[in-house]
């Protein structure tokens, strides 16, 4: 299994091939369009993170000591970034998720989307991912 760091490096590599913002954003939009990211039954009020601009749903399940995340958003660019975050953090051990950072988002030129003032729900989503990891880590130990 690839580590979070390895996956993040892979994502950075992929993004380095894009020549301009248009290619980068088109890729994210396509990611956002393609992926069914969450089971409809989990798109509940409990799982919602309300940003001022867009909404994010996030759900976590523990499978074989790894934490699986599914999520969604009503805005497609936000959803594209969610797809990238899920690729990096899903199916990993809670302990590794707690220790991982999100610097790779800066390196692929999407830093602005993780600004707290952006109010798209992503900052809270990352916080939520970490909270789930902490909660499940306590269960495992």
């Amino acid at each position, binding site marked *: 299994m690839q580590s979070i760091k390895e996956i993040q490096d892979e994502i950075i590599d992929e993004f380095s091939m894009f020549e301009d913002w248009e290619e980068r*954003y088109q890729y994210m939009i396509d990611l956002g369009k393609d992926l069914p990211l969450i089971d409809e039954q989990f798109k509940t009020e409990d799982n919602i993170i309300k940003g001022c*601009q867009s*909404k994010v749903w996030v759900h976590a399940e523990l499978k074989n000591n790894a934490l699986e995340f599914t999520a969604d958003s009503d805005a497609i660019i936000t959803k594209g970034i969610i797809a990238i975050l899920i690729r990096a953090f899903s199916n990993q051990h809670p302990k590794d998720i707690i220790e991982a950072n999100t610097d790779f988002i800066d390196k692929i030129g999407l830093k602005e989307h993780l600004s707290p003032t952006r109010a798209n729900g992503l900052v809270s989503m990352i916080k939520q991912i970490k909270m789930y990891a902490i909660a499940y880590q306590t269960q495992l130990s």
Partner: protein
Amino acid sequence: MLDWKKIRADFPILNRKVNGKPLVYFDNAATSQTPKQVIDVIVDYYSNYNANIHRGVHSLSQEATDKYEAARHTIQHHFNAKHAYEIILTSGTTESINLVAHGFASLLEKDDEVIVSALEHHSNIVPWQMLCEKTGAILKVIPMNQNGELEMDSYSKLLSNKTKLVFVNHISNALGTINPIEKIIEQAHNVGAAVLIDGAQSCPHVKPDVQALNVDFYVASAHKMCGPTGVGMLYGKEEWLNKLPPYQGGGEMIDQVSFTKTTYAGLPHKFEAGTPNICGGIAFGAALNYMNAIGFNNIAAYEKELLDYGTKRLLEIEGLKIYGTSINKTSVISFNLKGIHPYDVGTLLDKMGIAVRTGHHCAQPIMDYYKIPGTIRASFAFYNTKAEIDTLIEGVKKAKMMLS
């Protein structure tokens, strides 16, 4: 004939690039840009006569006081208030509204009624909700129609001798609708209610005459009309300002202080506790002088041209819907692309150097009415051009292509 190109050159920020593209600034309804004439006044203040006002015997303080009070007179004349002391300088529209709401907390009784409109900004909803919670008064809402206009028949029915206050914005920030405030004020007065008009969105486009309107309170922010942020005004009729208790305690607002009793200063100082935004107040006056030199009739006519052109060009894009279609509106266009989230469009437009506002515009009840998460809002000012609108059109088309 005014030279709009020359006027545009007054705004240094319009020459900058954003994300490598020339800036197209269409977020004027959130904050306007500042001309060098106003920037010069700010630099001059801090370079030459920065001092605290109203209490120094020294020359700098005197100079600062004179300029600050001169700005108050400029504001008075601009809004045609009867007296300069009816102009309270505040930190902006929100503080002005809160000042009045705070004052009415001691005037309202249980079951009194307060009316707001469905078109309000959150800053003109929340203070009144808080006021009603505190006093037991009841908040009523004037409904809107599909065009984004207020239902005046419903308004007439809401009014009764229980109505004590009516709060309506002059122009809706989310949709640009110009509300029939003359009628709203007249009808409220017929039942003995006071009226506060929120002029945050109107003042960049029109020159309100508070005496002709016979309005009780009128509020505005400098930063929407070429002035700096953090300063605004409350106009209140003298009789109303005398009825309201002070808003905050502190320096400047007192007459005599002892530990047993404090007597308050007269108007306007009663409402101006502490050291005010001195430079901001002076720059506010300079901003009004700048806009008046261009002339509000000229500004309105030119912005109407931009609005008509922008509306026509945007509607050429298939699947684009405009929210707020009243014939009485200012140069604000709120729109969405079918099946596309406004946040996505705004994000891509920013990449192209185009600044628009996306989201609910602090007016969630309006978005709920249309059952949408928000809109993309392009708002034009007199320093914008048709060529910039063309850039917006190309940008929206490109965003649509990428997102579809």
